[in-house]
């Protein structure tokens, strides 16, 4: 009898476990599908939440930690990303996954400007897999930031012929040449990058930088307009205002400055540039007001102090002008502007006499 009961009990358990296993699998499937869907929609918090639930089930913890590390990094939470990636390293991972973890940790170190650690991480990847292209790309970017341009170029040359990273190669080469000062080569690379991805704001913005530096303001404006349409930023509108100012379109320049101010109301440079525009139009009072507003936001602005000093000089307020120029001399790390202020003080002193 007891044997029968025992057997019946065993059968029940077996039956139950057969029914429960697919149920658990289904639940996991649903969680993963929800997480992936959220990620596809770029809903990073929802994706993270769902992957965390999957992690609780201890389902492939290495991989899930890796995914979470990546998602946290994409969401800008570097410390959480680092935590999960470090935990991923403690789990069982295949080679591709280990490479991904190292590359992501390298990226985090790069973002934190811990270049030595970033180089170490990316080099770890290359040690594991000689042709791991992402690591070369990462190294190139690190060397660009460190202004070690020939080194960066060497790393980039390794992935020159990569089909997978064609856009990334061209964009990084463009940024490298831009920062190095080789504008013609930069333009070629950036245009190639735009062929691969016409919507890349980074590439359009880098192009705009070069055109701006080359005083090709019309071309710079065209690129910046595109960037602004996708990613409106105060600094972009401000640069557009400067382009228009140099193209002698002062009214349009002021309109763009207002857009910049709307997005970044506390950026003193917007007002200082407004001051310069009015100054150029010989409207000393309005210019002075703009410089004052700029100084309200940043009392250490040498540009605004000099500008206001000029306005005061024009309005014959020589003592005020002297005071503003004098303030520039008390600032740190603005040597040429101090030199300029010093010269202005001397000139005002001569005029006073």
């Amino acid at each position, binding site marked *: 009898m007891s044997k029968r009961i025992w057997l019946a009990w065993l059968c029940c358990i077996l039956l139950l476990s057969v029914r429960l296993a697919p149920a658990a699998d289904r639940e*996991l499937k649903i969680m*993963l599908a929800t997480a992936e869907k959220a990620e596809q929609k770029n809903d990073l918090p929802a994706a993270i939440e769902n992957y965390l639930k999957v992690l609780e089930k201890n389902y*492939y913890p290495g*991989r899930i930690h*890796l*995914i979470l590390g*990546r998602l946290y*990094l*994409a969401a800008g939470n570097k410390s959480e990303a680092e935590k999960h990636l470090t935990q991923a390293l403690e789990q069982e991972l*295949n080679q*591709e*996954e280990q*490479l*991904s973890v190292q*590359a992501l940790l390298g*990226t985090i170190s*790069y*973002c934190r400007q811990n270049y030595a650690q970033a180089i170490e991480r990316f080099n770890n990847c290359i040690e594991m897999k000689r042709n791991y292209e*992402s690591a070369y*790309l*990462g190294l190139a*970017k690190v060397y660009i*930031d460190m202004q070690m*341009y020939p080194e960066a170029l060497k790393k980039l040359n390794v992935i020159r012929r990569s089909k*997978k990273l064609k856009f*990334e190669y061209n*964009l*990084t080469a463009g*940024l490298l040449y831009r920062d*190095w*000062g*080789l504008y013609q080569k930069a333009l070629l690379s950036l245009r190639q990058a735009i062929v691969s991805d016409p919507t890349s704001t*980074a590439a359009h*913005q*880098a192009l*705009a*930088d070069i055109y*701006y530096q*080359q*005083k090709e303001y019309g071309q710079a404006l065209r690129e910046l307009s595109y*960037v602004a349409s996708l990613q409106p930023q105060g*600094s*972009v509108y*401000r*640069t557009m205002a*400067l382009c228009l100012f*140099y193209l002698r379109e002062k009214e349009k320049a002021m309109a763009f400055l207002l857009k910049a101010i709307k997005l970044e109301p506390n950026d003193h*440079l917007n007002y*200082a*540039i407004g001051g*310069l525009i009015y100054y150029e139009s010989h409207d000393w009072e309005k210019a002075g007001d703009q410089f004052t507003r700029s100084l309200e936001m940043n009392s250490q*602005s*040498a*540009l605004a102090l*000099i500008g206001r000093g000029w306005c005061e000089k024009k309005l014959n307020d020589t003592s005020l002008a002297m005071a503003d120029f004098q303030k520039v001399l008390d600032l740190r790390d*603005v040597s*040429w*502007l101090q030199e*300029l202020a010093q*010269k202005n003080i001397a000139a005002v002193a001569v005029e006073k006499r």
Partner: protein
Amino acid sequence: MVLNLSQKLIIYVFLVLIVLYLPATLSAGATDEEEILIDFLWPLYLSLPAAEKPKVALVLGGGGARGLAHAGVVKVFAEEHLPVDIIVGTSVGALIGSLYAAGLPADTIVDMAQHMNWNKLVSFKLSPVGLYSTKRMEEYVTKYIGNKQFDELNIPFACVAVDIRNGEKIILKEGPVAPAVRASATMPGLFQPVEYRHRLLMDGGVIDNMPADVAKLMGADIIIAIDVTAQVGIAKTNNALLILSQVIYIRGNFLAEGQLKLADLVISPEVKDITVSELNRGEECVDAGVVATRAKVRMIKKVILNRVWDKL
């Protein structure tokens, strides 16, 4: 399900690496007060009458193949609309300087520098005074600027040579340009001296590799010197030409020290590891010239604005 995750990881890593490009977007736009002020004042400087502007001289030093970097220098000067009122050169500096002074577009000069080779400049001609003739160099310059005289150039130009009969420093600034350039760039030992107006002339680098004083004599208010001398300690000395050039440049470096003190600004392209004869490294030299000059553009503008700020 597991396989899916694994495949996606690789793609995702690439996507996250895009984070690497974020700092690039931050660098855009004018954010530097000094730069904004310079950019504001610069057009005001450009609009000044010529008489109120300081005369800016470009002094292009000698250095054989390294001097191809001068092409990169003039390219940036042209691109940035930086003023050049006087050009003085020695040796390869005379060659590149004459072309720019004659009004050749900077891009053409860059192209020439990138495709330079010895065949264009010298020909083998056995003689007791040298193995090669530099007649081709004269023809090469003539091909691009014609038979121009110094006073027909767009920018006042002078170059320096040495009269090997009496060791006199000769400043060439009158008469036909091409033979003067040839004389200034004729290295002793391998190349035959040039007979020029009853003188026997050779490379100016022997006596003055960085003729900043000549620029001063020509009325320069601001002197920008381009130094392409070799780093004597790492120079290769494995053939007669290199040994001769090494001797010239040891002396040249010594002499240039005093001349560099006359300069308001010195631009030194990173070409120190390139030998005098490596004309095949033209592109590298041009890039080095561009990079070094670009890095000094703001400084050049500041030096100029310092002289005129009260007139703006």
